[in-house]
């Protein structure tokens, strides 16, 4: 128990003093997880809308597969991307293993299914009559897409936030693809893992608390943005 209290105290100390190393790792974590999330969102939103509107053979099966990928263990994604990018692997020529770019690729593989699947679910919650009315008023396909995304914006934002949360909190990809290199690819979770390995449980707990604190700030900011948006 004492470790937990000391961890809490250490977290507050690190936060208040703007500890340079913690700030650097936190900023890197946000940049990398943010990039993966934004890129995954750029893929998921249009693709999800398209899948929602189009009727095609195997649509149910496709959605099933996407939903199955929600459960991908991060270490499997890490291993898969590692084998792909390793010099001995098919994309080894690129030489990008153990870089932030490679971590973004891995995290995108991890979170795109979540964002895509949940976008499709979010859109299917929008009332049909609305779309029928819009169609009868002569809305084009892209206008319909924007309309439905806008109607379902709370659920869509939740989908994006969940994906971002997973990127922020995963360890498997960061370790296997990033290599947890000090000052280059170390994320918050990697720093927590290392502190645990080295027996510094207080620091590990403190970093965990700071990660949650970051998540709280992000969630408050996003909620604010959402509420201020005019109807």
């Amino acid at each position, binding site marked *: 128990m004492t470790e937990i209290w000391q961890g809490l105290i250490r977290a507050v100390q690190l936060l208040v003093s703007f500890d340079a190393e913690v700030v650097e790792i936190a900023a890197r974590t946000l*940049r*990398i997880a*943010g*990039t993966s999330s*934004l*890129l995954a969102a750029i893929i998921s939103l249009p693709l999800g809308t398209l899948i929602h509107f189009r009727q095609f053979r195997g649509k149910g099966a496709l959605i099933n597969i996407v939903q199955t990928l929600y459960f991908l263990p991060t270490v499997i994604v890490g291993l898969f991307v590692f084998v792909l990018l*390793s*010099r*001995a*692997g098919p994309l*080894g*020529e690129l*030489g*990008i*293993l*153990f*870089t*932030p*770019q490679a971590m*973004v690729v891995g995290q995108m593989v991890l979170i795109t299914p979540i964002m895509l699947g949940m976008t499709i679910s979010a859109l299917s919650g929008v009332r049909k009559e609305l779309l029928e009315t819009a169609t009868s008023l002569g809305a084009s396909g892209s206008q319909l897409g924007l309309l439905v995304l806008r109607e379902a914006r709370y659920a869509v934002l939740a989908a994006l936030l969940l994906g971002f949360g997973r990127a922020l909190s995963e360890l498997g990809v960061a370790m296997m693809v990033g*290599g*947890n*290199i*000090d000052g*280059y690819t170390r994320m918050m979770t990697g720093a927590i893992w*290392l502190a*645990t*390995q*080295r*027996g510094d449980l207080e620091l590990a707990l403190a970093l965990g608390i700071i990660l949650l604190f970051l998540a709280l700030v992000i969630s408050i900011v996003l909620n604010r*943005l959402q509420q201020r*948006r*005019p109807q």
Partner: protein
Amino acid sequence: MKTRVIVLAVIAIAVIVSVIATPRVPALKIATTSSLYDTGLWAHLEPLFEEQHGVKLHVFRVGTGIALDHGKRGDVDAVVIHDRTREEEFVAGGYGVERVPFAYNYFMIVGPEDDPAGIAGLKPEDAFRKLLEDGAQDPDRIVFISRGDDSGTHAKEKAIWQAAGFAYHEVQESSWSKARDGYVKAARGMGPTLLMANEKGAYTLTDNGTFLAYKGNLELVPIVETGAMLLNEYSVIAVNPDRHPGTNAEMAGNLVEFLTSPDIQDIIGSYGVDEYGVPLFSPCAGAEPGE
């Protein structure tokens, strides 16, 4: 509304660009054993190397087994590890240029102060035999935590079992190993294994560097410290550029030179004195210690 969307889009693009365009600085990538990392030696040497050679040093903290695997795949430029047998196989297999020992220390068997198996003063192989035999009778009191992770320390443990007259599978299949406690595989790094042994009042095999670095958190004491088998040599091997042309062979050569240079050898030989009162490693400048 419009301006806010534009501002958000600009921020989003800036974030993406900041990561995608992160320059791929020339770096020397090395995979190293957890004992060298956790003792803080790499954190100490890294800035010196970076200053001398104007290149970033990217250090991966993995076990000897994974380090060799990274080397075989060409994902690192050099490996810095401690398992002579597998190192020699690595070089003989054409994966590495040359095995260069640069420092050593000793393994030791640590355990609870009351030494429930009574192994103090024995040779390591005799101590292991007694642990297995007595442990089978009393697995609740006589517990051994093995690294169980293919690391250099785990390889040393297997070698000691061999010298004690047991094939490793015999140890794993013994009633001592099948008991709830008894012989336990931790499957984690040296530091966490020590902490686990400490929690369980167990014996374990450790290098003395990591033990000293963790001593403050431990109630364990050294039980067996002498025996020819306990030598722990650290070597550096540059990955063979013929096999993986993408590796940074020139800089890997610089690292080998760096680690065996007189200045750095002095630094390695005195590392830990300030903090622990004794050095954690002895330098051996490219030669086999004791030969």
